């Protein structure tokens, strides 16, 4: 890392500063920009969600505050700040106050290992992926605590559902992680991205015929992780009023809200790092031209990774405003009985493929201009899956038209 915060802190505090001072200094140096970034991601994605949902639904969405309502979220934030801090009678006051912070902390800490560019990563842990998988579950604890502390039956339902959901989606999610780790041979985020340099078929997603399936598994599980439709069971507006945050208002609610949108970014950025080439555009000459200087490479890298992440966030929103919510037992069935076996097979087969046909692109400085056998197969499987899904959806729709049976003569 050439952006070593240690030197910066030393420069400010002097080299003889005590351990705790240095710790506080390093934390501030990194926590501050990340706090800003999380808030910015929240602002942008909340605005995006409102505009995207509005345009999907033939509406305009917010238009009054700022150009095309871009500042509406800030206005809402101010409103939430000014609201009364309401704690219901009979609630577990300490847990009630702690829950949003717990939920937010899990997402917030994840940003420590999510890279923005070749050098733009707070802590390039050797166990980055493992750390993320571990810390990502913390959010669920906050959610469960919120529902439990609220002393409200609907909130309790929401939190129990959240607990059920965690034990269901974490396994396929973990299997997808392990599949990537088996192919990558590392858990470090930056190393994984480095291995995906070159043309787009070097991305892990197309590395071998099983990786597209692993990506789909990861994406579905990640939807469940950030409680997005069709897995928005813990909130389930029409069923559980607001689920786990029924009793939350004002800033505490805002923190839950922010955590949700930050989690959306985290899972999307992680998908980009694990499967979609990280900060590489996927076109080798372009990457070489753009990364002329390290600084420039970092700026472009951050832009690429953020753009890719927001494309995935857009897909999440698109899904949310299209699909109905699935039921609790269906969610468990899908996660535990469908995705786990598939994940197992994908893991074993991807690992076998990696052992028998090691990817030559993975060797440093050897970036073939033509895709390897694995990549061709991966691309083919990806296209097949896409076309197959399209045909399947078409057929389901055709099988269920109200126009089918009767002898209509309109």
């Amino acid at each position, binding site marked *: 890392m050439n952006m070593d915060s240690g030197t910066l802190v030393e420069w400010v505090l002097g080299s003889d500063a005590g351990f705790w001072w240095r710790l506080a200094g390093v934390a501030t140096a990194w926590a501050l920009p990340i706090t800003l970034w999380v808030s910015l991601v929240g602002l942008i994605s909340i605005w995006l969600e409102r505009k995207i949902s509005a345009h999907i639904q*033939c509406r305009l969405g917010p238009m009054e505050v700022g150009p095309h309502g871009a500042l509406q979220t800030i206005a809402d934030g101010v409103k939430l700040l000014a609201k009364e801090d309401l704690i219901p009678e009979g609630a577990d006051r300490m847990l009630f106050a702690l829950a949003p912070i717990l939920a937010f902390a899990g997402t917030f800490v994840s940003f420590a290992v999510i890279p923005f560019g070749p050098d733009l990563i707070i802590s390039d842990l050797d166990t980055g992926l493992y750390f993320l998988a571990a810390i990502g579950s913390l959010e669920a604890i906050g959610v469960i605590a919120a529902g439990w502390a609220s002393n409200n039956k609907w909130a309790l*339902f929401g939190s*129990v559902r959240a607990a059920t959901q965690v034990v269901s989606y974490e396994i396929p999610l973990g299997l997808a992680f392990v599949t990537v780790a088996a192919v990558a041979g590392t858990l470090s985020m930056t190393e994984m991205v480095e291995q995906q340099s070159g043309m787009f078929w070097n991305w892990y997603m197309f590395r071998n015929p099983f990786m597209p399936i692993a990506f789909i598994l990861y994406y579905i599980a990640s939807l469940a992780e950030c409680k997005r439709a069709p897995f928005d069971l813990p909130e*389930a507006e029409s069923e559980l009023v607001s689920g786990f945050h029924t009793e939350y208002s004002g800033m505490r609610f805002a923190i839950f809200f922010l955590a949700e949108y930050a989690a959306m970014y985290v899972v999307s950025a992680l998908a980009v790092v694990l499967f979609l080439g990280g900060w590489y555009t996927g076109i080798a000459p372009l990457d070489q031209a753009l990364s002329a200087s390290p600084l420039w490479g970092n700026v472009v890298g951050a832009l690429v990774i953020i753009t890719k992440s927001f494309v995935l966030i857009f897909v999440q929103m698109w899904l949310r405003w*299209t*699909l109905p*919510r699935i039921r609790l037992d269906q969610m468990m069935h899908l996660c535990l009985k469908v995705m786990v076996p598939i994940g197992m097979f994908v893991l074993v087969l991807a690992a076998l493929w990696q052992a028998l046909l090691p990817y030559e692109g993975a060797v440093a400085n050897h970036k073939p201009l033509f895709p390897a056998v694995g990549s061709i197969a991966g691309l083919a499987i990806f296209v097949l899956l896409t076309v197959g899904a399209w045909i399947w959806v078409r057929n389901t729709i055709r099988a269920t038209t*109200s*126009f089918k049976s009767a002898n*209509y003569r309109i």
Partner: protein
Amino acid sequence: MSSEATSTAALAPGGADLRTEEMLLNMGPQHPATHGVLRVMVRTDGEMVLDCEPHVGYLHRCFEKHCENVTTLQAVLYTDRLDYLTAMGNNWGFCMAVEKLYGPELVIPERAQYIRVICQELNRIASHLLAIGTYGMDVGAITPFLYCFREREKILTIFEHICGQRLNYNYIRPGGVAYDVDDAMLALIGDFCSYFLPKIDEYDDLLSGNDIFVKRTANVGVLSAKLAIDYGCTGPVLRGSGVPRDLRKDKPYGIYERFEFDVPVGSGEHGTVGDCFDRYMVRVREMRESTRIVRQALKSIPGGEIRSAKIKAKIRPPKGEAFTRIENSRGDLGFYVVSDGKEVLYRVKCRAPSFHNISVLPEISRGSMLADLIAIIGSLDIVLGEVDR
């Protein structure tokens, strides 16, 4: 809670092991999915609904007593507030009962009959649009709701042009209708029909054909034909159970016998006959049928009077009693009126379909999941203004 409530053995094949502590859950009257001020007391075991009991009456406002204290013409206005999503049908049902008091010598002008049919069928479409849209929302799909409202808005605008009101029309009066409909408006209605039919295909694509939606509604809340008949269910709820009963066909009132249309019934396309999906699909198909009827009516609507000269401005129904039923969008809407020859009716009794439809809720929701309960309430498509009266 009723004593013969549950046989949990049917819920958990393992027997008593899976049973946990029961919880009494109060759903409503302020709840996003109860479609108004319905309150349901739910006894749950985890997510499982062991028993539920709808508590109605939060919107009770003495409809019948009101009608017995105002003149007959003023009473029409109160019928609007029954099933406020199909106010045309309510008007018509009440007016038909009053007209029956006059006996067979009262002839409603042809043009008024056609206008009544057109308005009623358009209103049925508007009502079903809302039912389908909110049903999508109940199972978590919010977007179809907005699409349905876009179309419903067009119908309401048509009604606004016809009678000045968007929801409580007070348009169909004893002896005819309040105002005439000009040709430009009829053309507009025709345009709406052509615009609307492709939109139903879009709903099919977005909601009916959605695999998650099908999985959420098929085999959920199965209402057998016998149970439906026992509980007096009518309308799409009964037809969803596979009983082809539609008053427009079986006991045609107005001029319905002149039109060609089918009665869609549930066939268990994706599950069992009488599940939530069937009830939903019946409504979608009925919108097609209603469009068909409107188109036929537009083709053959004659000119002439819109109000019978026999009924004067001051309505004094002759002595006697009458009971009539019409097929409203939620089922058989019956009105029983007794007149003692005065301007004010002596007795008004309303048989509201939603009240009978909601009464079946405990029977079909036992043993389902909590999320299913929401889907079942949505599929019954109740209007609390009519349930509570």
